[in-house]
């Protein structure tokens, strides 16, 4: 394909359509606004829908954290403007306890599920899988569309729960019963909790529809020559992510259904021996186990961590290699370690439950298996380090975020060795140490992976670049800010400061961090504002960004860069390219990079 052809816009591309007979492809000149932008079945458009919905959710979820950080940083001060906006939830300009708990619950739910699951793997699995394996679209574009729209409905239900009179769910993002099962135990466990459960159930449906599609596309729709071991690591990561989701989300779903039964059908799956002070009544339920829910929840909850992290790992591997102009080090070891993580992810859930009265002997197995995860994680880190060693690094914004990802992954991963060890978990469980740990390793690191992905593939998504200067500002403030926010929290955790406390003034053991709390709050507001700068850059650049003029701006070897600059539905004009080599021939035989589509030369060196 000549370069010239690729410069042509979308409309001219259609002239070449008749030469091949791809069903979806043929349709696309009849597209209306509705079929192109709303009920689109083009994986690229669905990816953008996921991304933009994810961005909106991220702003909402981030805003929640700013609100509760205000309370934590300034527990004695009142902010009359909050009362104007939030009414009774901030009576007297102070955030009320019920509302504080609603905020932390929603912050967690939104960021874990709606942003870092749907927004991250929804976006990049949809966008990258067909483009990088050489498929015209997903195995089932219709199911793919449904996946987005189920997510959308889930989003609407969740949003609506913010406006009910008794408030949204407020039992923490884990929603442990009996608190979440009994409306009399907490305002947030009334209608808000029902809406939360319905929304999450719809979310699970969305996630399964998407996941099944990703797996079948990867297994069945790879182009000629694209063997499994020639796939870019992004696709491998997304593959494992989808498998994890498919196997674990149904368990969460079952847990939620049982909870719904306990709430409304009078069953006693999770309830036993309860006397509520608010009503002065004993409940009839006997024989249930509150711990059962925790098992069901964490059976998803732990793989969920990797559902969030693996796509970021995959994208970071790809971006580090591309911008180091050097192959990823230990490609097979990378796949093997992801596989190991994937398997272990299912065998460690009870490390969230060391202090629930779990049998200590059983707990010891979970300690062993949990710390075992550090081995594949270490392999990945050292492989990334070796990938940049003796490279020729280009610090594009995507590259910087990838380096930031590795730094965060190291910092957060190492603290996992603390909390995964049951002995230390006794002291650190449910303290700020845990907050620091999972925000760094799962929150910030995955966000860095997501930002890296957005900066790297934005030119492919929209045919334009994001503004570089804003990107650099975004990166540096976010990196420094994230460490300033979460690093000192480890110290609060070591001091035993419990999470989910909105005011420490009543505690002699925990009130020594007032200054620190204020500092963290100020930094988090600055970091949040910087994210808005990114959002602005994102939307501005969609319309006004510098145009992409070359087909392969990063000099990348993977297939998505062999498509036209603005690919139509169907991705390639003419034949789908054939693949002849793995995705990481950078700097081989003195050449900058060798595209996957180039046949292996007779004199080419072997590795």
């Amino acid at each position, binding site marked *: 394909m000549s370069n010239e052809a690729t410069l042509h816009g979308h409309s001219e591309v259609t002239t070449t359509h008749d030469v091949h007979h791809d069903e979806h492809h043929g349709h696309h000149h009849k597209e209306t606004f509705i079929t192109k932008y709303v009920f689109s079945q083009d994986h690229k458009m669905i990816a953008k829908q996921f991304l933009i919905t994810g961005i909106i959710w991220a702003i909402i979820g981030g805003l929640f954290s700013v609100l509760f950080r205000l309370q934590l940083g300034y527990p004695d001060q009142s902010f009359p403007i909050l009362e104007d906006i939030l009414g009774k939830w901030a009576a007297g300009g102070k955030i009320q*306890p019920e509302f504080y708990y609603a905020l932390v619950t929603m912050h967690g739910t939104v960021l874990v599920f709606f942003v870092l699951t749907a927004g991250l793997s929804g976006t990049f699995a949809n966008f990258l899988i067909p483009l990088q394996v050489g498929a015209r679209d997903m195995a089932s574009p219709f199911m793919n569309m449904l996946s987005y729209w189920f997510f959308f409905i889930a989003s609407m239900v969740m949003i609506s729960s913010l406006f009910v009179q008794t408030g949204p769910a407020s039992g923490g993002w884990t929603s442990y019963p009996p608190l979440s099962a009994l409306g009399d135990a907490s305002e947030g466990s009334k209608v808000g909790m029902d809406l939360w459960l319905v929304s999450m159930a719809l979310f699970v449906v969305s996630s399964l529809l998407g996941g099944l599609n990703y797996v079948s596309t990867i297994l069945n729709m790879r182009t000629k020559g694209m063997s499994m071991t020639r796939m870019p690591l992004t696709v491998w990561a997304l593959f494992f992510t989808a498998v994890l989701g498919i196997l674990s989300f149904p368990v969460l779903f079952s847990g939620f259904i049982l909870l719904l039964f306990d709430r409304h059908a009078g069953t006693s799956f999770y309830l036993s021996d309860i006397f509520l002070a608010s009503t002065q009544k*004993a409940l009839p339920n006997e024989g249930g186990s509150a711990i059962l829910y925790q098992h069901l929840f964490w059976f998803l909850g732990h793989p969920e961590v990797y559902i969030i992290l693996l796509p970021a790992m995959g994208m970071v591997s790809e971006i580090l290699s591309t911008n180091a102009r050097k192959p990823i080090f230990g490609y097979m070891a990378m796949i093997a370690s992801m596989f190991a993580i994937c398997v272990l992810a299912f065998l460690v859930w009870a490390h969230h439950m060391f202090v629930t009265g779990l049998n200590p002997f059983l707990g010891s197995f979970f300690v062993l298996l949990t710390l075992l995860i550090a081995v594949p994680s270490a392999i990945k880190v050292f492989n990334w380090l070796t990938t940049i060693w003796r490279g020729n690094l280009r610090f594009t914004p995507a590259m910087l975020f990838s380096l930031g990802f590795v730094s965060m992954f190291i910092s957060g991963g190492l603290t996992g060795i603390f909390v995964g060890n049951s002995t230390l978990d006794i002291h650190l469980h449910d303290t700020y140490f845990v907050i620091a740990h999972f925000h760094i390793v799962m929150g910030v690191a995955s966000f860095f992976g997501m930002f890296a992905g957005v900066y790297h593939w934005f030119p492919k998504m929209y045919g334009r670049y994001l503004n*570089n200067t804003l990107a650099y500002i975004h990166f540096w403030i976010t990196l420094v800010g994230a460490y300033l926010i979460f690093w000192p929290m480890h110290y609060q955790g070591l001091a035993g400061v419990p999470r989910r406390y909105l005011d420490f003034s*009543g505690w*002699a053991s925990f009130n020594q961090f007032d200054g620190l709390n204020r500092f963290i709050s100020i930094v988090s507001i600055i970091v949040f504002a910087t994210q808005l700068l990114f959002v602005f850059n994102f939307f501005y650049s969609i319309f006004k960004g510098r145009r992409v003029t070359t087909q392969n701006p990063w000099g990348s070897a993977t297939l998505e860069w062999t498509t036209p600059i603005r690919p139509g539905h169907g991705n390639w004009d003419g034949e789908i390219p054939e693949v002849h080599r793995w995705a990481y021939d950078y700097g081989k035989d003195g050449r900058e990079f060798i595209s996957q589509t180039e046949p292996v030369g007779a004199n080419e060196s072997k590795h």
Partner: protein
Amino acid sequence: MSTLLIIAILLLGFIVVFQIAKASEYVSVLKGEKKTFEQNNRINGFLLLAFLIVGLIGVYWCNELFKGKILGEAASDHGEKIDTMLYITIAITGIVFLVTQILLFVFAFKYQYSEKRTAFYYPHNNKLEVIWTVVPAIALTVLVGFGLYYWFKITGDAPKEANVVEITGKQFGWIYRYPGKDKVFGKKYYKDIDEGQLNQLGLKWDDKASHDDIVTNEALYMVVGKPVKLVINSRDVVHDVGLVHFRMKMDAVPGTPTTMWFTPKYTTAEMKEKTGNPDFEYEISCDQMCGKGHFSMKGIVKVVSNAEYILWLAKQKTNYAMSHPEEVKPAPAATADSTVTAAVNN
């Protein structure tokens, strides 16, 4: 008004940053893409190194700042084990943290783009990969070994001589029960809870063992140097008995009693001296989200000498007596006191 001002300043800041960013894009077009790229690359390469250095100084400084505010001496034998484990883990992970972060940022700085350099084609090396599979595995074996050794010590059976006390969480407070002279807790049933009758735990009065049980909301008393076993319950939702000074923690689950045990090392009075804080108290914090009062669900542990313990216990009225004021004749105070004195003297 001030809020509006802040928002206005923020907006202005945004606009300024955006204008600069836009202008720099035009400048880069004028200067030529290659030159701009090289310049940006150098700046970011330098910043990465600077971040490493400033960051490591920051890590040290942060430690200096907070080390006095965390982890006072552990006040229980189990707490000491946990602290030892903590220091072992910090040592091992600290080394890994330093090595990997330094390598990451130094590599990034050192191998930044240069026209003269070509990247080294190095797709894999089995020997290296085996090394960094095996070495972390060994380090982790050490950590797992120590961890489980302490874990089984801490979670093993409580010694027979341990005092047994029951602690029950409710929204939002703690109820403590002592078994009384017979050292046996009377039966209870949650449907018999009746706060109006002062029966907070639903003790079954037809079980005689319940008659001498002492139920109080005041404090959890324990004897210094003597193992104490807590039987943990919840009346409504999941709570958690968090004892930060003893480094202990255990969930309170409705319907499923849990236990933990430890030996307190210092009395509350000793801790007042040690910390130099005359108001020092051992606090019980609820460490599991339990509703809107979660953050205020505080309890107090009083660690006292054996004599003080006996004295305190003897002064307590049994729950049975409180619930049945008409049945139990008020015991002559003098007798009670003399028994106590006798006990103390023994």
